[in-house]
């Protein structure tokens, strides 16, 4: 297999890496974290100006037709810099849903501003009881004259506080956990009846819960056919998982590098602690997990944009499981090898560790994906 990047991919990687290195120093990130949006609007604008916000969209829609591998390169660098911008949620996940389900009118209205970086989207799919099950939707949409009325509650909507438009799943018919009857709506965050409770997540980015009380959504803001959104939700979650795996790889690479540097620097008993074999073994175990996870992230990137199939779903579930396991292992080992400093707010590693643990709990944890893998293996 040829893993060599093309010249264009190499340049893309170099551009994002340099941009992140220049804009996302530890103190700068701290400043962005404490700012009102919880990320850098300037950095987001720069992503738009450089065309990076348009990478995941087809050329027919004014994007650059980026593949899963292109998305992987961007996400890895954003992960390495612990970037707080909701690129994954807005451009890859929400953008993918919009592109897959949107009508010509909706695409013409929203994609140009999404690609330029002027519009940021957020995806509101999870509910308190849903526990990663996309079909477990209790938020209801009732038919009214000229549109729909949405009522219910959505939780942990990352980037939902700053989004210009929210993609909300709601049930237009059927009972909770029915495969049929789930629809996706474009909801204006300023709409009457919608309130948001904003909070920071433990790993940095801000999120919010949505409370919907008879929020009126026009027919023109229904994405796709009513009740038919589940297949697209599953497919696009797969693309988001591939991107998330890449983000984790960037963060894990940085965590390993920080740990290695620390082992070579910290002196104990008159020599660097990296001279002790027991610690060397731990470091090697971390790198082994990272290599395994990197292979799976590449596999996920390669299948992310393939047509939907059981095989694609199985590979993505496997990737998420392996990457999640590696992320937690590396985060924990890195802290152990650092000792107390690995937990301090003022040191970058602590933030990587938190991010890596939290990534495991977004878009399905390891248990969820292991059981999904087992089911798919059985049905294959």
């Amino acid at each position, binding site marked *: 297999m040829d893993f060599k990047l093309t*010249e*264009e991919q190499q*340049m893309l990687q*170099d*551009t994002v890496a340099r941009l992140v290195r220049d804009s996302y120093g530890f103190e700068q990130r701290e400043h962005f974290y404490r700012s009102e949006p919880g990320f850098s609007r300037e950095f987001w604008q720069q992503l738009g100006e*450089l*065309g990076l916000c348009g*990478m995941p969209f087809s050329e027919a829609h004014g994007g*650059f037709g980026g593949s899963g591998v292109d998305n992987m390169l961007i996400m890895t660098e954003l992960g390495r810099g612990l970037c707080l911008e909701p690129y994954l949620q807005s451009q890859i996940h929400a953008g993918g849903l919009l592109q897959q389900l949107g009508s010509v009118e909706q695409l013409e209205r929203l994609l140009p501003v999404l690609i330029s970086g002027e519009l940021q989207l957020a995806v509101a799919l999870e509910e308190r009881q849903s526990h990663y099950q996309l079909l477990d939707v209790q938020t209801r949409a009732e038919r009214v004259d000229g549109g729909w009325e949405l009522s219910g509650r959505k939780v942990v909507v990352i980037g939902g506080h700053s989004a210009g438009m929210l993609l909300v799943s709601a049930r237009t018919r059927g009972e909770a956990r029915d495969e049929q009857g789930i629809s996706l709506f474009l909801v204006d965050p300023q709409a009457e009846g919608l309130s948001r409770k904003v909070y920071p997540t433990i790993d940095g980015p801000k999120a919010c819960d949505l409370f919907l009380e008879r929020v009126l959504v026009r027919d023109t803001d229904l994405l796709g056919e009513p009740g038919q959104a589940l297949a697209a939700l599953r497919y696009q979650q797969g693309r988001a998982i591939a991107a998330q795996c890449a983000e984790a790889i960037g963060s894990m690479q940085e965590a390993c590098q920080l740990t290695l540097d620390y082992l070579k620097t910290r002196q104990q008993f008159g020599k660097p602690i990296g001279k002790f074999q027991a610690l060397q073994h731990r470091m090697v175990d971390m790198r082994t997990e990272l290599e395994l996870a990197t292979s799976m992230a590449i596999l996920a990137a390669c299948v992310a944009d393939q047509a939907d199939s059981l095989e694609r779903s199985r590979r993505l579930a496997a990737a998420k499981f392996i990457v999640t396991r590696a992320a937690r292992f590396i985060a924990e080992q890195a802290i152990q090898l650092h000792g107390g400093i690995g937990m301090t707010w003022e040191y970058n590693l602590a933030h990587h560790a938190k991010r890596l643990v939290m990534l495991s709990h977004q878009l399905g944890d390891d248990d969820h994906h292991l059981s999904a893998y087992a089911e798919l293996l059985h049905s294959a």
Partner: protein
Amino acid sequence: MKILVAVKRVVDYNVKVRVKADGSGVDLANVKMAMNPFCEIAVEEAVRLKEKGIASEVVVVSIGSSAAQEQLRTALALGADRAVLVESNDELGPLAVAKLLKAVVDKEQPQLVILGKQAIDSDNNQTGQMLAALCGFAQGTFASRVEVAGDQLNVTREIDGGLQTVALKLPAIVTTDLRLNEPRYASLPNIMKAKKKPLDVVTPDALGVSTASTVKVLKVEAPAARSAGIKVGSVAELVEKLKNEAKVI
């Protein structure tokens, strides 16, 4: 005005280089390579002159293995119009490079040649000056500001203890210092456009230049590791140590 910019493929400045065990050079296996940072500044300056309408064409040239095409593509993505690679797998010293660039200058006839003041791999800081001598052009080295005024070029140079501004008659050679500008990022549309821009490959033989080296590297070694410092108890002790141990006051 046509501008020629020379760029070099070097080890990425973020990489911690390692000396080979036999001391014959730096280990380049699986090491990330990039455009020399001073050359990036040179490309940026040329592209800015083009954007101001002063330059009509920006041609980038690199000398090295076929892998140097990556750096030429990067320069094209930053805004250069076309590229020339002088393909050679030999280890080339500054004089050989200057001779090859002279041949390219003769062919392209640029009014301005911009180079980095030095490459971060060998730190020679010679090629620009040698090229100016070979071409008989005026030179403004270590430039922190470049202004075109008619058929004259005003170059502010960073020199020991201050700045010096020189006026050069065109055609001229400029070598860039770090403070000349801040290179832009290659945007996605420009990365896509870069692959359609022309990139010619020539050989030293075709240019009629002999690249035989006059310098032989005998040994390469890493700098000595910094030894641990000490804490002094008082100012008096510090002064005493500076006077008697370090003998600097």
